[in-house]
């Protein structure tokens, strides 16, 4: 049933957020707020918060990556030192803590950074095919887009709200 998409482009964040507020107030019956997105050239946390509370799971990935990196790093290095013919060097213990600490620290950071990037790509849904979504190059310029995916009746109401808030252009498409 939710087979129509509408993208309205606004001049600035104020007009876009006013449109979203009216959309909230209108309390449309078939509108799933998860299907409302903002497309903008820069971030704006306040306006994004109008869409509701949405989770950012990045930090969980970071923690996992850092712990894995540090843990596996230490285990790998210590077992390597304990098994490479157990070579004595310079009077120091065969598994010395200062070098192992330095390397564990580096691997901790390596794991943290790599898994965070992975987490970013997964959480942001990148890479994605642009053909599967409505987009306008003005979004990378200076216009703010508000996109709603819903049924035909809802989309008509949304169009009306957009027009009341000085929308610059509207794009619609039917989703297959």
């Amino acid at each position, binding site marked *: 049933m939710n087979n129509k998409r509408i993208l309205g482009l606004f001049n600035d964040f104020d007009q876009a957020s006013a449109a979203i507020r009216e959309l909230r107030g209108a309390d449309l019956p078939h509108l799933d707020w998860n299907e409302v*997105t*903002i*497309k*903008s*050239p*820069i*971030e704006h*946390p306040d306006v*994004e918060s109008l*869409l509701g509370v*949405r989770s*950012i799971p*990045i*930090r969980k990935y*970071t923690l996992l990556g850092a712990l894995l990196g540090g843990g596996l790093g230490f285990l*790998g*290095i210590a077992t*390597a*030192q304990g*098994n*490479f013919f157990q070579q004595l*060097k*310079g009077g*120091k213990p065969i598994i*010395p803590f200062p*070098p*192992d600490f*330095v*390397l564990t*620290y*580096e*691997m901790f*950071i*390596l794991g*943290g*950074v*790599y898994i*965070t*990037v992975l*987490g*970013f*790509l997964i*959480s*942001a*849904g*990148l*890479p*994605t*095919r*642009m053909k599967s*979504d409505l*987009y306008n*190059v003005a*979004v*990378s*310029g*200076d216009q703010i*887009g508000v996109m709603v995916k819903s049924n035909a009746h809802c989309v008509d109401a949304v169009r009306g709200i957009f027009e009341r808030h000085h929308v610059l252009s509207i794009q619609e498409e039917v989703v297959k």
Partner: protein
Amino acid sequence: MNSVTQAKDKDIREDLSWSQINRDVLASLERPRATYWVLFALAFAVFLVGLGCEAYQYDTGLGVSGMNNPDVWGLYIATFIFWIGMSHSGTLLSAILHIIHADWRKPIYRFAEAMTTFSLMTAGLFVAVHLGRLWEIYYALPYPNERWTWPNFQSPLLWDAMAIFTYLSSSILFLYVGAIPDFAICRDYATGWRKTFYGKLALGWMGTDRQWRNFRVSYLVIACFLIPLAVSVHSIVASDFAMSQQPGWHITSFPPYFVAGALYSGCAAIITLFIILRHVFRFEEYMTLPILDKTARLTFAIAMVWTYLNCIEYATVWYGDSEVAKETLMQRATGPYSVYWWAMNFLGSVLPFTLIFKKVRANLSAMMVISLLLNLGMWLERWMIVTPTFSHGYYPWTWNHSFFPSLVQWGIVFGSFGWFGMLFMLFCKLVPSVSMYEVKEMVFHRKLARLHASQA
């Protein structure tokens, strides 16, 4: 606050339109004119000099570098540390200033981050060049093999390898992830092969709130990791010296001293590239004089930190118990390398005082010359750490060995600048050297702040 402020005192004009920002920066990516190709050819020629010297050295043996017993390390290690040091600029500007919300970094951090990446790649060249058996460099990597041989994890040189690998890959990821929204802009305005190229790089970025939300947090988290990483990388490089027992090296303040020196040379290099890019791409609206002013003041502050750590090293040796360390220090000041040592101290500690004067900070030619001289001072510092200790170490039999790098060493050092230049020039034409979306944010927030200030 006086609402009527001179345009030249502001870091950026708040009424810059976003589409103009796009236009100005994308103009820098256009097909290059003849001057670009001439300069690129020049950088390539310089690189070829280095390559030729290395080919000769590879074929004949390291003896052609003029090194001997006890002078087993020369300009290769010194320049390696110099390039690693220069790489700290990007982290300083991108990560540290980001965390403290200093938004004047926004127009300039992109090329600083690129400088980080290319400095690290140039430093990697020196690791290769300095080895006696370069074709077996992979022995230093922990790869599984049927003999179960692993590298020596106790060696500071190996920590270098791990740390620099981590730093290089994290820097590249940070640079790339931070540029995704800009690649989207490039994709939207490009045609032909460029459109496909930027399209692939942008990963389908559409600026949705979901993408921005996750982007914001990821960027901050990676910046938080990058700062301790940068500090630890250069501390590890310092450990190459501090963890040995040679006089003049075995000094506990070496790790922070090296990190301070790295931030110092990174800042000076930022000023140099700032002035070049501002002129070449006509980025006067973005790389403004107030931002240069702030960068210069930051450089001065770091110069003072470096001066302190430098002088404290001399003081601790002077008041310490080790006769040999004291002799080594005196030999640096009065021996065969004294000219370079005094030059390093002058350029590193006295010259930055010119940055106190606003007239100097606002004069682009003066800043260009000063920033190059500051970096020369920092290069000399690295050399003065490496070689004088060999010329006056513990063992008397090794004294009175004079060591001067041969032309082969100078050639390779020279060539590395050509390599860096080539990489940087490629970057300038393929990646927007000013971060468009961040400049838009900067303009947006300042406009908002000005609006609130005038309403209050």
